[in-house]
């Protein structure tokens, strides 16, 4: 009995060839990328074992003296006594006494976000500034006077009178002024400590805030990085 088997449809062969072509192309691309990455990888050569000449030895001695001098100059910049170091990446505040870490506390620093006021054409950037600061003042029981952005954020109208701006417990039990309106203060939301969520100030938990407040004095350096 003769039976004619149905052959494959014409389109299948073309599709198979196209698939094969694509797979081969991808493989070639992958090999090329791997070759690029591995081929351009730096190989650190071994140190040159050739003995130094007399001129090089002279240069070596001069460089040694320069290195010692530079190290001494750099060391002279390092702070001494009591100071604070704030790590904005990890949200950590460290209190140092005589170059020994006396306290490490989880804090919150600026979110880095920006807020624009389309009506007043103003822009605020909520970042904790980096650099060297000093404690300019210390305040017990601070009362926060909410700025315009606080109302804009809450979708509330900016109040006309001062009394409507006062928030007595928002800053916690103590505040330390770093200048330009930036403070180290407490928070009502301790669960958010460790996150970069503030408007530029540095927030601390109640217990750590009290320890820091009682240790630092007006003039204590604060280093923020």
């Amino acid at each position: 009995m003769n039976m004619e088997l149905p052959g494959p449809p014409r389109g299948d062969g073309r599709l198979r060839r196209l698939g094969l072509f694509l797979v081969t192309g991808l493989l070639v691309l992958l090999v090329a990328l791997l070759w690029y990455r591995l081929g351009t990888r730096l190989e650190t050569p071994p140190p040159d074992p050739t003995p130094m000449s007399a001129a090089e030895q002279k240069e070596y001695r001069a460089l040694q003296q320069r290195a010692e001098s530079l190290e001494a100059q750099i060391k002279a910049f390092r702070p001494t006594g009591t100071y604070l170091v704030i790590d904005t990446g990890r949200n950590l505040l460290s209190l140092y006494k005589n170059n020994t870490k006396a306290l490490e506390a989880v804090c919150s620093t600026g979110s880095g976000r920006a807020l624009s006021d389309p009506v007043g054409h103003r822009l605020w950037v909520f970042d904790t500034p980096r650099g060297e600061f000093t404690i300019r003042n210390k305040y017990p029981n601070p009362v926060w006077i909410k700025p315009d952005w606080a109302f804009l954020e809450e979708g509330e109208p900016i109040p006309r009178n001062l009394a409507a701006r006062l928030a007595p417990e928002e800053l916690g039990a103590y505040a330390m002024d770093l200048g330009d309106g930036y403070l180290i203060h407490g928070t009502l939301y301790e669960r958010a400590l460790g996150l970069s969520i503030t408007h530029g100030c540095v927030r601390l938990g109640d217990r750590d805030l009290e320890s820091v407040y009682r240790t630092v004095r007006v003039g204590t350096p604060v280093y923020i990085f």
Partner: protein
Amino acid sequence: MALAALLAVAAAVSFAAARAAREGASTRGDLDRLRRRVALLECELALARSRKPYLIVDAPGHRLLYGLLGMTVREIPAGEIRIDGLKRAPGAAPAPVTLAGIMTLKEKENDPRLAPLTPEQIEAGASDENVADALPPEAPADFRVQLNQPVALRVEGVPEKDGVFAGATGFWRRLLPGGNRGGSVALRLTVHVEETAAREMYRSLVPGYLLALVAPTGYVFQDAALESPRAVKPGRPARFAAPPPGSAPQGVPFVIPPPVPEGAAGEAGSTGEAAEPASEGAPAPAVEATPEPAPGPSDPRETPPEPQPEPPHGAPPSGSAGMGGGA
């Protein structure tokens, strides 16, 4: 006679070699290492003088060092620091700037400050940090950084948790060359650190941040790739003149953060800008001052939206110290 002279020369050479070995350095390799160390110290001194925080990318040491005023405040181990665009070190003494140099951060990828939120977005719940469900988005673990110099920097966070998906995405991510897209770039720098450390780096790096880079052993940078330490401006110490006793300060100014003109968001909040002291003077005495300031106006640098009917310096209702800063 000739043999004796030869022996004498050989003895002198071996004596010199032994002396150099006693000093701990005898080879050109040691000299090269010291040249790099001095070049880095020159950079670090300039950075310490700037009184701003800085980040040292130590390629030979496979680590990143955060510094401020000459103290290392944090060290991050780096799995790999890949630098494309290096030149083989010449035989002669290379220029110090080709061994180590300084860069300044211009902009980081997807910086939230470049897309300011509007009150409408915030009202819709975009940034109410007091609502647990609306916390700000996590910082990226893989990001590019634009620098003022012709250098492209990419930080790649290596996933700490092993998994099929993380492994596959990490493989493809690392396969593609890092750095900025477009533009003329003399150096492409890719730093592999742990994922958490990469996120922390993203948070800490802001426009204006200073970075120092040391070339790996056997290589030098191109001449115009990095800035010389002399290009860094020295900063002023943050001294603060304490208020004279008896005079009550007029409250903390209402500038958190200071407003900046529209379109200049990339410049605001940069390093050291706010660190400039408002007044230079004698160092603050070590006396605790706890004056009772009166509340200030909403922002002395801004025009109040409407005149305030109340006097700007009235006593706060609780009788406690009034504060203009906050949150």
